[in-house]
Structures are given as structure tokens and as C-alpha cells.
């Protein structure tokens, strides 16, 4: 899919950058001869390579999880039709299970045998898939993200999994399933190097080519050599997260889903057991309450204790989940890239080009506010339809639970001169509250209230009134938080209800600007502005019309006059 879709682009790219590429690969090879130990050769030559044998384990595990997920839906049907639980250990069932087990294990070997890859002429090429054969061809210079994963069973043997991701939308990513760690590092460096070289190409390469002067082009590549080399060697750690920070992160953010997600295949069983248990308990509770053996306050106390225990358990699970993903977190920078490394069992490495960061988001929940912590996100373009797990995703580089000062320093690092808190925010109009109350909440709540009044149910009436008050309160908070600021360099947005989120982006990265205005808003000289960025859209409603027009004009001017690339 990827190959056919982008073949045209590739040929153009090859033509554009063939000469310098040759130079570079030559010089690389020379280097490699001199010191082959520190940097293994990335190019595998024209021959197709097999993966390391350990990849069979990876394929087997992957196929087993796939099968387990598939079976979850099949098990109830099978259980009903064959009455499987009555003769669980009958020969038929055992044979069936055995065949399934063996075929799945065997499929790992087959997947291994069907997988070939090579890195040749600055292209990564992969043949994979058992029934549906796939061919992926990625030019190194088009790779935007390099993710290196080290599952725990790879680590004793020093292997790694490399995920290469392009700027293209959708599933245009390639996985090299098992290569030695040193090779993975070398490949990453080569991609980074290729990137630097390619950018250099765009800036200065053309004039050199036009002169047709061989010397200047070699000089040029030498210059880039040194630039790339310096970029490669200086890896600077910007931020580390200690275990304490990660525990705080686990408490303030619900990371239960990481563990619940991993346990997904066992949900059916767990739900069955729990519902049975609840049924038993529920029966007993009913009896207890019915017989009036326990005073109501005692019952309330029980409920409270149970609730507390559940919450403690959830917090514990969440801390576990946070440790699982963020253990040993470091954020570092080499050249124009940010690299995030973390993970307890599965070591993950995500790198992102600085220029591809579209937006900084600093999120602070109410608990974060109490503890003075901030979750910082560097958002890259989000490819539609690719719903990745937020924390693992290379599209959002998260720095979990940093202190407010660290958040300030990090945002300054990514967007120099960006001050999220120091802005004078243009707040939105109070009509925002009125609009939402009238448009969405008043009618149904009045309806409910009337129903309560007619049927003389006081609780329904109180419920409707209190819902109305809570909604009004939340809308007021939202109105109070929501604001926008522009300091001629960045656009800032503040929003939230109890917690606060700050967002900051460079106006020239906007993809589209939308101004909305209802006829009622027009009368009041108000308007809503929406910026579409590659990472998603941001909206600020009910701003003064004049402000919106000026801001929209300025942002459009910034895009069209600076002509800077958004990537």
C-alpha cells in the first residue's frame, strides 16, 4: 500500500538527492572501515536479511495475543454449542486445544520465515505477512520518527524492535522486529543523519548542484558531516523523572487503564466472577438491610469504607500503571530531536523532530494544582484514524508530572520565549454561560422539574434544581478560565473548569483558520475563532468580533508571509 501510493514521490526524491547521497554513503563506508566497532554498517547490501531468531518469540507472543483476542468472542458460542465445560478434559477438546496451541506456536516460525528486510540504497525495504504479503519501502529521509522498543524478553539477549514512522497519514509505518541493539542505534543515527543531510540539501544543496562543481559538493557534504556528527554526539538530558515523580503521576492521573488494558483478554472471566460475588453479597446485604440488624449509619460507614478501599486499590493500580510506562523516564535532546525513553518491562524510546512539534499543552487537574504538578505534552501531527494509545504514541510526547518551574523551562526549551502564565489573556464573553444554559440545559431541566412538580416528587425537583446550579457553576468556571492571548510570536490558549490547561502554538503552523458567528452573536459583536493545526483544532468561543478578525488576519498573514514549513 505504502509502496504503490508513494512511488512517484520517491522517484522525485531520489532524483533530487542522489548525488549527495552517494557521497555520503561512500564517506560512511570509509568511516566504517576505520572504526567498525563503534558504528556498525547500516546498509545491508542488496541481499535480503532475516531477523534474529529471537523474533520467533515476538511473533509467537503476538500471534497468541491476537488469537486470544479473537477467541474471546468465540468462546461463549463454543461453550454453548459443545457444552465444553462438562467434558473439559475429553480427548476432543484436548486435541483441539493442542492443535490450536501448536499451530499458533508454529505460526511464529512461519511469520519469522516469511519476513525479510534489507536496508539498501538509503531505503528500508520489508517483505512480510503470511497470507497477505506486504511490501514496504521507506526512504530513510522520509522517516520522521524512530521508536526503539525493548521487550523484556529481548533485553537479556541485547535485541531491539525498531518502529519507523513516516509523515504520511495512516499506517505507513515499518517494524523491523528483531535486530541487535547496536544495529538499532546505528539505524536511528543514520536516519537522523540522513535527516540533517537532507535538510542541508534543501537549504544549500541546490545552488551547489547548479554550479556543477564537484569540489563544492564534496565540501558541502563534509560540512554536513560535521554538523551531523556534532548533532549525534551531543545528547543532552533535559529532564528525568524519579520514582517519586512517577508515583505522584500515578496518583494524580488515572493510569488504571494501562493495567486494565493489558488484562483485556481476561475480562469475561473477571466479570463473571465479580458479578457472581456481587450477587452473593448483594443478597446478603439485602437481607441485612431488610432485617434491620444494622443501623443505617453503620451501613453508611460500611459503604464508605468499601468505597475508600476501592479508591485506594484504583490508585495503587494507577501507580503501578504509571511505573510500568514511565519508569526511568528521561527526555533528552540530540541535534534537532527530542528523545523520550521510559518503561519498566518494555523499554520504549520515542524520538521526535523539534520542528514537527505543533503545540505545547500543559495540563493541570485539580489534584495537580494542589501538588503543583503539570503534565506537559509536545504534540505532533495526529494522523487521522490512527488511534494510538496516548502515552505510547509518538505523536504526543508526554513529560509526566513535572513541577511548574520545570514545565516553564521545558516549554521555553521547545518554544523559546514562550510564557504560558505570563500572558494577559483575552477572556470570553459572559454570554457564553447564558448561551449554553439556554441552548442546552434550561429546557430539559425545566421539563424534569415540571414532571417532578406534577407527580409531586420532591427529590426529582431538588435534583433538577441542583443539576441546574451545578451546571451553571461549571459553565461559570469554564467561562472564567477560557481565554486567548497573542504576543506576536505565539498564540496562547487557556481553558479548563477546575483544572487548567494551557496551550501554545506558533501561528505560522496553522493549517486553516475558521471564524464562526451566529446571527445572535453578530448583534453582540462576538465571534468564535478556530485554528486547525496538524495536531488538531483549538477553539475559543465568544470573543469580541474585532479581536477575532484581527487575530485571524494576523495568523493568516503569519502563515502566508513567512512561508515557513509546518513540519
Amino acid at each position, binding site marked *: 500500500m505504502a509502496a504503490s501510493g508513494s512511488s512517484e514521490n520517491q522517484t522525485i526524491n531520489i532524483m533530487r538527492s542522489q548525488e549527495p547521497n552517494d557521497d555520503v554513503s561512500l564517506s560512511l563506508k570509509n568511516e566504517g572501515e576505520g572504526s567498525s566497532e563503534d558504528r556498525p554498517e547500516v546498509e545491508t547490501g542488496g541481499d535480503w536479511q532475516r531477523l534474529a531468531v529471537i523474533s520467533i518469540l515476538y511473533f509467537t507472543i503476538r500471534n497468541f495475543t491476537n488469537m486470544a483476542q479473537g477467541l474471546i468472542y468465540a468462546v461463549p458460542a463454543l461453550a454453548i454449542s459443545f457444552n465444553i465445560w462438562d467434558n473439559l478434559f475429553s480427548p476432543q477438546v484436548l486435541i483441539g486445544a493442542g492443535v490450536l496451541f501448536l499451530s499458533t506456536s508454529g505460526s511464529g516460525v512461519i511469520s519469522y520465515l516469511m519476513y525479510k528486510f534489507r536496508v539498501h540504497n538509503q531505503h528500508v525495504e520489508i517483505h512480510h505477512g503470511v497470507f497477505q504479503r506486504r511490501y514496504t519501502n521507506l526512504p530513510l529521509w522520509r522517516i520522521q520518527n524512530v521508536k526503539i522498543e525493548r521487550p523484556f524478553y529481548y533485553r537479556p539477549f541485547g535485541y531491539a524492535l525498531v518502529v519507523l514512522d513516516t509523515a504520511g497519514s495512516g499506517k505507513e509505518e515499518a517494524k523491523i522486529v528483531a535486530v541487535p541493539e547496536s544495529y538499532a542505534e546505528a539505524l536511528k543515527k543514520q536516519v537522523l543523519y540522513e535527516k540533517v543531510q537532507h535538510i542541508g540539501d534543501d537549504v544549500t544543496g541546490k545552488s551547489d548542484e547548479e554550479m556543477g562543481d564537484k569540489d563544492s559538493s564534496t565540501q558541502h557534504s563534509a560540512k554536513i558531516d560535521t554538523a551531523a556528527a556534532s548533532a549525534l554526539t551531543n545528547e543532552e538530558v533535559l529532564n528525568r523523572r524519579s520514582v517519586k515523580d512517577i508515583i505522584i503521576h500515578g496518583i494524580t492521573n488515572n493510569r488504571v487503564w494501562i493495567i486494565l488494558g493489558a488484562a483485556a483478554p481476561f475480562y469475561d472471566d473477571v466479570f463473571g466472577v465479580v458479578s457472581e460475588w456481587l450477587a452473593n453479597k448483594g443478597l446478603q446485604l439485602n437481607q441485612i438491610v431488610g432485617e434491620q440488624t444494622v443501623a443505617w449509619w453503620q451501613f453508611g460507614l460500611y459503604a464508605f469504607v468499601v468505597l475508600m478501599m476501592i479508591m485506594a486499590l484504583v490508585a495503587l493500580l494507577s501507580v503501578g500503571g504509571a511505573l510500568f510506562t514511565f519508569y526511568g523516564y528521561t527526555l533528552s535532546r540530540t541535534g534537532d530531536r527530542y528523545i523520550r525513553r521510559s518503561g519498566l518491562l518494555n523499554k520504549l524510546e520515542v524520538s521526535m523532530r523539534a520542528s514537527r512539534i505543533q503545540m505545547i499543552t500543559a495540563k493541570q487537574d485539580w489534584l495537580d494544582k494542589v501538588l503543583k504538578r503539570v503534565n506537559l505534552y509536545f504534540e505532533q501531527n495526529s494522523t487521522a484514524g490512527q488511534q494510538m494509545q496516548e502515552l505510547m504514541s509518538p505523536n504526543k510526547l508526554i513529560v509526566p508530572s513535572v513541577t511548574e518551574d520545570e514545565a516553564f523551562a521545558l516549554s521555553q526549551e521547545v518554544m523559546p520565549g514562550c510564557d504560558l502564565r505570563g500572558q494577559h489573556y483575552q477572556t470570553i464573553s459572559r454570554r457564553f454561560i447564558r448561551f449554553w444554559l439556554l441552548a442546552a440545559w434550561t429546557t430539559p431541566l425545566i421539563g424534569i422539574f415540571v414532571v417532578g412538580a406534577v407527580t409531586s416528587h420532591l427529590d426529582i425537583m431538588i435534583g433538577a434544581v441542583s443539576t441546574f446550579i451545578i451546571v451553571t457553576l461549571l459553565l461559570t468556571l469554564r467561562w472564567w478560565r477560557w481565554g486567548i492571548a497573542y504576543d506576536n510570536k505565539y498564540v496562547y490558549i487557556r481553558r479548563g473548569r477546575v483544572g487548567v490547561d494551557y496551550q501554545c502554538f506558533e501561528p505560522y503552523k496553522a493549517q486553516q483558520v475558521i471564524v464562526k458567528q451566529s446571527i445572535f452573536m453578530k448583534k453582540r459583536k462576538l465571534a468564535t475563532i478556530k485554528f486547525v493545526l496538524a495536531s488538531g483544532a483549538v477553539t475559543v468561543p465568544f470573543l469580541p468580533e474585532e479581536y477575532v*478578525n484581527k487575530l485571524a488576519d*494576523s495568523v493568516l498573514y503569519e502563515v502566508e508571509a513567512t512561508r515557513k514549513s509546518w513540519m
Partner: protein
Amino acid sequence: MKTDTQQETVFSNNQLSVDEIPSFKTLALVPISKKYRALNIFSIGLIALALIGIITGLRFQRFWSLPDNLLLAYPYVVAGIVAIGGVWVLYHFFADVRIFYAIREQDISKQSGLIFRKLSCQPILRVQHVEVNRGPLDRWAGLASLQVFSAGGEMYTFEIPGLSLSRAEQLREFILAHKDIGAR
């Protein structure tokens, strides 16, 4: 391509006062084809007729008997379809003549909406690719819609509906010929 433009134009970066920044409030908005409204109303009528036809067919067929409840509901269902269709037609009647577009050197804009007026502006520099789309009814009426894709995602595809085919082609050519396309 990029260097060509760099060589053609002398680089300038003069200070501009706020008044000199072009304002999209002064856009000269052009209405889309008048046929678009007629076509929409026609197709709504077609859909409503088809639905009513199916229901009527079911109501009066002789192959199997329907429960009495459904027979009683028949006039209400037809009335419901007519009502929804009527509201829909009314919306298009008033909204479709309020769709405008405008082209500037550097961007392309569209204004639309009946109660919530929406003005979206797509800088041509950010265009990834362009499509001219024609459904069967569009082809019959000689209309086309222009779709402009940016990196903002599918949800924010910039679309101008109800253009005459020649105008849509012309706009596409304009965008493709724009010197910024391909410079990213």
C-alpha cells in the same frame, strides 16, 4: 522548486503596520451556482419519494399481512417523512444561497451557514492535495465540488460545493499552479 522561487523574488521583510495586514473582512465573496439549491431540493424530494414509495409498497402489498399497529402508523410515518423533508428543504432553500467563496493570492475562503455563519480560510501554502468531486446528480446538473485537503485532517477538509465544472477545474488549476504547492 523552492530555490526557483527564492531566486525569482527578492527577499523582503519590511515592517508592516497592523492596518497593512490584509483583512479577510474585505473579501469579495462570490456566490456558488444557483443550480446547487435546486439540485439539493430535488434530491431531498427524490429521497422522500423513494422512502414513501417503499413504505407504501409495504403497506399495500398482498404477500403477507402486517400487524394492525403498523397499518395504523402508516399515515403518521408518511407525515413524518414529509415534515422532516420539508424542514430539510426549507433549510437548503435559505442556506444554500448563503454559500459564498473568495479567492485571494494566498488563500481561499468559504462562507456558509444559516444561523451559525462560518467563514473558513485555507492558505494555499498548506494545501496537500486538491480534488474535484462529482456525484451522479452533480454530473447531471453540470456541477462539481472542490475539495482541498490540508494536514489538519479529514474533518477539516475545505470543500466548496455547487461550483460549475469549469469553475471547479479553474480553481483546481489555480491552486495547483500556485508556486507554494510542493514547497510544503
